[in-house]
């Protein structure tokens, strides 16, 4: 190809079609990109709950809360049971069998 054919090149550049962009073209492109990146909306409340459960942050937080609640309730219950056992031990030692 010849490189010194400047008038032909200029003519070709002038003749190339430059279509008009539709209105708000750039804005629409960005909106479609955002829509594509956004997570899909759950179909039902059950799907929404399942999606929430599967989030690692939620799962770790819920497991921690349940673990702490279990330990607290168990400790409280254990203390009451131990207190009751100790009270019964004392009572058994001071109350004659004949009166029980």
């Amino acid at each position: 190809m010849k490189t010194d054919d400047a008038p032909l090149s200029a003519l070709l550049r002038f003749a190339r079609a430059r279509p008009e962009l539709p209105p708000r073209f750039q804005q629409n492109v960005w909106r479609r990109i955002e829509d594509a990146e956004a997570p899909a909306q759950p179909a039902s409340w059950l799907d929404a709950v399942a999606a929430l459960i599967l989030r690692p942050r939620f799962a770790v937080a819920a497991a921690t809360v349940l673990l702490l609640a279990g330990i607290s309730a168990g400790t409280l219950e254990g203390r009451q049971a131990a207190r009751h056992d100790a009270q019964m031990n004392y009572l058994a030692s001071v109350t004659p069998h004949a009166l029980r």
Partner: protein
Amino acid sequence: MKRSLVILVGAVALGAALFAGSFYASQRATVACCTKPADDLSWLRNEFHLSDAEMAHIRELHEGYLPQCAAMCAKIAAKKGELESVLGTGTNLTAEVQTKLNEVAALRAQCQAQMLQHFIAVSQAMPPEQGQRYLAEMKQLTLGTNDLMEQSMSGDTGHEHHH
């Protein structure tokens, strides 16, 4: 939908297992750590916040009371044996049976009085407020059961009647 349901059920089961496991483990650990079956008086020390000196005095009272209590138990057991033999296979309430019943009742009353006397002595070895609380609790625990039984027999629900 089905997958979500499986996830939800699995999560609930896992959560319940986690809660139950931590509950039972901590409960058993607490009972094992806080219960001292070797010492009958551990409840007194913990419940009424007693000092070493107060505990030593109470232990002395307790050890003095135990032989008296055992002796009274033996007397009641012997008297009940006599009552059983008098009752035999008879179907009538004889004068002798009535006498033995009265003797058993008298011994039980004597035993209760001795026990109350011990509770009073122990309560006096405690700080006043704790002593009162101890005495009230011991009365309720040792005599309350009889009250309940008598109330249920007489149909008294415990309501006070104002005249």
